[in-house]
């Protein structure tokens, strides 16, 4: 059986998969490679996962390793921490980041601190996956992008896979990490389909990546807004503006060097972040740019973020509240000034 569940002709160098399938393949690989790995969370087993990521895995690996949990985020995240302390390599799935607030105490007060509090005696090799973001008319209690909050916390690593390669490859590397890693999967990305190398595997989780090279403006983004930003870059190219698109990939620890280097080349930056502006990741990136590349800036840093409202349910209002391609294009043109 191939790593991608038999959907792949063995001879082909590339396979056509969705982000969801790439993520499932990553979980499957982890389960196969390391007997200490198990998946637990709400509806991950019999239901196949709220976003169908773990569909079929219960039949494949059995209830010992694909474990449905009660509706208590605090309890099952705490159980995951305990299991990690006990030598296991748990993958805990929280349905959405909005519900992770119920486990905030476990994540922030325990997972992130125990290594420190124990004087370095106890690592927590725990991976928590959760869905984030809006765009699917799930309203204000299921649509927010709170990953920036977690990126505030020392002691945890925060990942945001935005490509098929990262969906496929980040999980294993996260499990190898001796400390807690949070993986944020944007809800609109699961259906994203594309070509992936048949032998795709683990990827590094330390560095940001340049997804498109350009000379005129740096568009800095991550997760669910990466496809929108790449589309905006294509439209800008029609205008004669060559945008460089940076995918942060790792939100904590933030890999600021590529950002600073890119802005030093383009002298202009637009940050695209589905989170709100105030007290946010986009604010942090802005600060890093100003701290490290102030004298490279030829225009103020622009941010394209979500409207500072609870995410609306109505489709047109939700669309209006979220970063969209035209807003990214307009912001890039603004920072270009007259010299585009």
């Amino acid at each position, binding site marked *: 059986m191939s790593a991608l569940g038999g959907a792949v002709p063995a001879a082909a160098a590339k396979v056509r998969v969705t982000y969801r399938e790439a993520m499932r393949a990553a979980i499957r690989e982890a389960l196969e490679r390391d007997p200490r790995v198990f998946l637990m969370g709400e509806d991950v087993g019999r239901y196949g996962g709220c976003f169908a990521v773990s569909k079929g895995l219960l039949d494949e690996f059995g209830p010992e390793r694909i474990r449905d949990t009660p509706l208590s985020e605090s309890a099952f995240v705490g159980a995951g921490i305990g299991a990690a302390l006990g030598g296991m390599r748990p993958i805990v799935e929280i349905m959405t980041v909005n519900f992770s607030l119920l486990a905030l105490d476990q994540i922030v007060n325990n997972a992130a601190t125990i290594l420190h509090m124990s004087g370095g005696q106890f690592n927590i090799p725990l991976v928590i996956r959760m869905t984030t973001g809006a765009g699917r008319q799930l309203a204000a209690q299921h649509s927010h992008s709170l990953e920036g909050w977690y990126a505030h916390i020392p002691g945890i690593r925060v990942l945001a896979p935005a490509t098929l390669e990262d969906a496929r490859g980040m999980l294993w590397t996260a499990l190898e990490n001796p400390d807690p890693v949070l993986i944020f999967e944007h809800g609109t990305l699961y259906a994203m389909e594309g070509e992936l190398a048949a032998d795709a595997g683990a990827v590094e989780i330390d560095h940001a990546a340049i997804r498109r090279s350009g000379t005129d403006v740096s568009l800095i983004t991550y997760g669910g807004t990466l496809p929108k930003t790449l589309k905006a870059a294509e439209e800008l190219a029609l205008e004669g503006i060559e945008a460089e698109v940076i995918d942060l990939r790792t939100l904590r620890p933030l890999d600021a060097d590529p950002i600073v280097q890119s802005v030093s080349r383009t002298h202009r930056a637009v940050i695209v972040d589905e989170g709100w502006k105030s007290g946010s990741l986009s604010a942090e990136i802005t600060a890093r740019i100003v701290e490290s590349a102030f004298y*490279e800036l030829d225009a103020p840093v622009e941010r394209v973020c979500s409207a500072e409202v609870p995410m609306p349910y109505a489709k047109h209002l939700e669309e209006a509240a979220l970063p969209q391609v035209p807003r990214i294009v*307009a912001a890039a043109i603004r920072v270009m000034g007259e*010299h585009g």
Partner: protein
Amino acid sequence: MPSLGADMDYGTLVEWMVKPGDRVRRGDIIALVETDKGLIEIEVFDDGVIESLLAEPGTELAVGAVMATIGQEGQAAAAETPAKAEPPAPREPIPREKAPPPPSPPPPAPARAPRIPPGVAPPGGGARPRVSPLARRRAAELNVDLATVIAGEGNVIRVADVENTAAARGVPKPAAAREAALPAVPPPAAPPAPGERAAQKTVEERTAAMRRAIATAMTRAKREIPHYYLETHIDLGGALAWLAEENRKRPVTERLLHSVLLVKAVALAARAAPEMNGFWIDGEFRPSEHVHVGMAISLRKGGLVAPALHDADRKPLGELMKEILDVTNRARTGVLRSSEIADATITVTNLGDQGVESVFGVIHPPQVALVGFGKMVERPWASGGMLGVRPVISATLSADHRASDGHCGGRFLAAIDGLLQEPEKL
């Protein structure tokens, strides 16, 4: 835009001193122009009536560009129609169809709009332009004064604005543009010169610009002119005695300084030695009918100019003295005229005040000779078989060997000496 020196490619119109309909006569001052040599009053070449002013103050124009049209008196009306030249129209903004307007609707987005039309103040009601950090850094690197940079969209100076200014200043413009701007007869609708920009230069900027102008001229001189140098010592005893006597007859305000004798002697000697008086242009020497002595004047803030004393050989000493004082004063505090800047046919430099005994100067191209005077010193001097103490001055000649030879130069210096021995004839 007249050429105010061989090294001048561009000048910035600062102010018009005339308006359409004004009657002007050759020599009238019609405009104030800023060059690397400072502010210069531009004199008109012909008599006539100003028909139209084609350049806006603040515009930088290539040498040869048409600034205004002048009609013959009585023909002004007839000439008016064809002579009208339209001021340059700004390029059409490139419409950005793809780009939706930013949230708060700006004016119909000239996203990559053209430069500010020449002569038009930057938008923002004259408010201090905002300067991007990169533009500020680049300006420091390129030694560009931000006050000379035209702000772009939104009254913001970006790095490209700084680089444009630096390019307009330092990089030679394409030859084609320069030739196009140098028609013998101005075409009816001459295009405006490229690289137009408003410029209000600061003192520092002017000083730096003058330094560059001097550097250019002197580098050219030492590269192109095969200098030869001669020196002689001149007994000024007789001249000073005559001067003391002469000054006794004059009111205090009209007294003469010995420098006027030196200038006059050089002028008269130059008239008699045409190889020393004129220009080397296009591989040949062109002697000048007139003797316009350029007098090197050092400026207090650094740099120097050598404005011409017109027809110095024909002017009585009193008049020449007044002119020397006037031009020195204006060079240091005010404004020189275009003819004074461009016309000198030979230069005199006098470093005696600085205490040096002799000066071997660098010829100012396209001139072919420069006479230097040092400090007057008392020296033991043998004359007529007798030894005495006389006031002696060093006179040097730096001359262009393409235009003259040492023999000729020697005669020229000797002639200056001879003239100074008969001051009453000066």
